[in-house]
């Protein structure tokens, strides 16, 4: 069953980009990554799903219900953590969480305590006095206190230290095991790779690719850069899987996807002065996707 179904969703803003013709599905019980550079349309898509903004065309359903028509019903089962958290500043953390819980017809007192303990959040402080990271923690507790069936996270890790990130991920995995579906938006590939089953890649308002993380990993993108002793024939590295090949003087660089041995063999056969092998960053993978499309 699909928890989220997005069909040809388009949002046109006055000047800024918005999104166009976005379609993908999130299955029940999966952790779905939603990845793309800043300004690609991740937040726009999420805001459309939550009916904070309304689509220009296309539609989306959550739990099989139209997001515009049944927004107030759907949100009962959604926990949302925005990328930047803002709350009523003059409230205490405790009061804010109580207010948040009062929207759901459940007793969340125990759950609030549990979550606050895991995230090491001081409930007696005023929101005003909290650091960015601590505000984020309030956001996490606030998003999870009603044990939602669908958790939507918009760049959730910014501001959290590595230890807290770890705890947060553990928490998410636990929720996932209990049956929650998670939509995880991020611009950090490694984060998504760790946690997610499948991933949709968005750039400039369009979905470039929906892939299983396993496939992404199998694809095994590597960024090669090497310095040769003597100048090289341009076609030497023109094999399958090599992209963005650049040769400047004695420096060769490219992105490779596929069986790494074919490249190491190639490299073994020439004399090199230096070699760098790196994980390509997201931008470079995107470039690759674009080139393939064209």
């Amino acid at each position, binding site marked *: 069953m699909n928890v989220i179904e997005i069909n040809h969703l388009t949002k046109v803003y006055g000047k800024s980009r918005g999104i166009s013709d976005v379609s993908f599905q999130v299955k029940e019980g999966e952790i779905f990554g939603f990845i793309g550079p800043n300004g690609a349309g991740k937040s726009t898509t999420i805001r459309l799903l939550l009916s904070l*903004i309304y689509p220009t065309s296309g539609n989306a359903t959550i739990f099989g219900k139209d997001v515009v028509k049944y927004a*107030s019903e759907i949100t009962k089962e959604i926990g949302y953590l925005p990328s930047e958290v803002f709350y009523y500043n003059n409230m205490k953390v405790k009061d804010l969480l109580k207010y948040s819980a009062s*929207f759901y017809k459940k007793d969340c007192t125990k759950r609030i305590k549990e979550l606050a303990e895991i995230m090491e959040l001081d409930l007696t402080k005023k929101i005003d006095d909290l650091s960015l990271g601590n505000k984020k923690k309030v956001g996490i507790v606030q998003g999870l206190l009603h044990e939602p069936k669908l958790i939507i996270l918009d760049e959730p890790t910014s501001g959290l230290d590595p230890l807290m990130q770890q705890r947060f991920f553990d928490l998410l995995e636990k929720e996932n095991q209990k049956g929650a579906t998670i939509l995880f938006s991020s611009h950090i590939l490694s984060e998504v790779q760790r946690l997610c089953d499948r991933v949709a890649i968005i750039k400039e308002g369009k979905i470039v690719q929906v892939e299983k993380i396993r496939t992404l990993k199998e694809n095994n993108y590597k960024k090669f850069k090497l310095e040769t002793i003597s100048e090289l024939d341009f076609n030497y590295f023109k094999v399958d899987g090599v992209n963005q090949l650049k040769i400047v003087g004695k420096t060769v660089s490219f992105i490779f996807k596929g069986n790494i041995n074919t490249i190491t063999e190639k490299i073994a056969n020439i004399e090199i002065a230096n070699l760098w092998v790196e994980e390509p960053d997201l931008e470079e993978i995107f470039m690759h996707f674009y080139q393939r499309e064209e």
Partner: protein
Amino acid sequence: MNMFLQELKAYQKPTIIWSISIVAIVILFMALFPAFSRDADEFMKVLEGFPEELTRAIGLTFETLTNVLGYFSYAFLYIKLCGAVQAMNLGLSIVSKETRNKTAEFLFTKPVTRTQVLTSKLLAAVTSLLFTNLLFLFSVIVTVEIVKTADYSRQGLWMIAASLFFLQLIFLGLGMFTAVFIPRVKSVISVSLGLVFAFFIVGMISSSTDDEGLRYLTPFNYVNDYYIIEHLNYEMQYIGIGLAIICLTVILSFVIYRKKDIHSV
């Protein structure tokens, strides 16, 4: 209910401050009445030297000024100004609050409809204004009873004083509508002060020129205190327009609010 209480609590402090201020104006004005009525004759002579347009604009009419009711209605002009600013401010602030404080994402991702959100806000605002008006009415009745020199029409006093609530509802509606209409309200007080003073000045011009057409444009003149003192009645066509403005601004606010995109910060 939780949202209503939350809003009520959020506006508790400003409501109390506004209420106290309005009561203070009442007490200040009415405390001057004994001294004023003692020297009424001399005061009148000074006033006669003023151009009639001016005295009319600031709400001074000689025939009624020596009577406590007439004197009160003079003071009431400035209480109306104060009350209008309060109501407009409240309407603007309570509706634009979520976008100004960037808490929209919190509230609108809760299982509530936009209609429920705005209804709670509207009810909380009306409750706050009711509180102010109760304190105001109480202070008026007590002070007028204390300083009165002769009998006056109780009904007239009630009718004038009660019109503050009517005026405030109009400005509450205008404030709410402005808040949903303007994409981003940066400073509540500058917008509300600007608009209220614009209406107030139009009201003064309308009073001084007796221009009937202009009178329709400013809620400040929908209730004419001197007409009430004479006829013990409201002018129904203006009450009707006031009610229409309240309904229209509130309904339009709801319509726009439901369809509005909540933009990110």
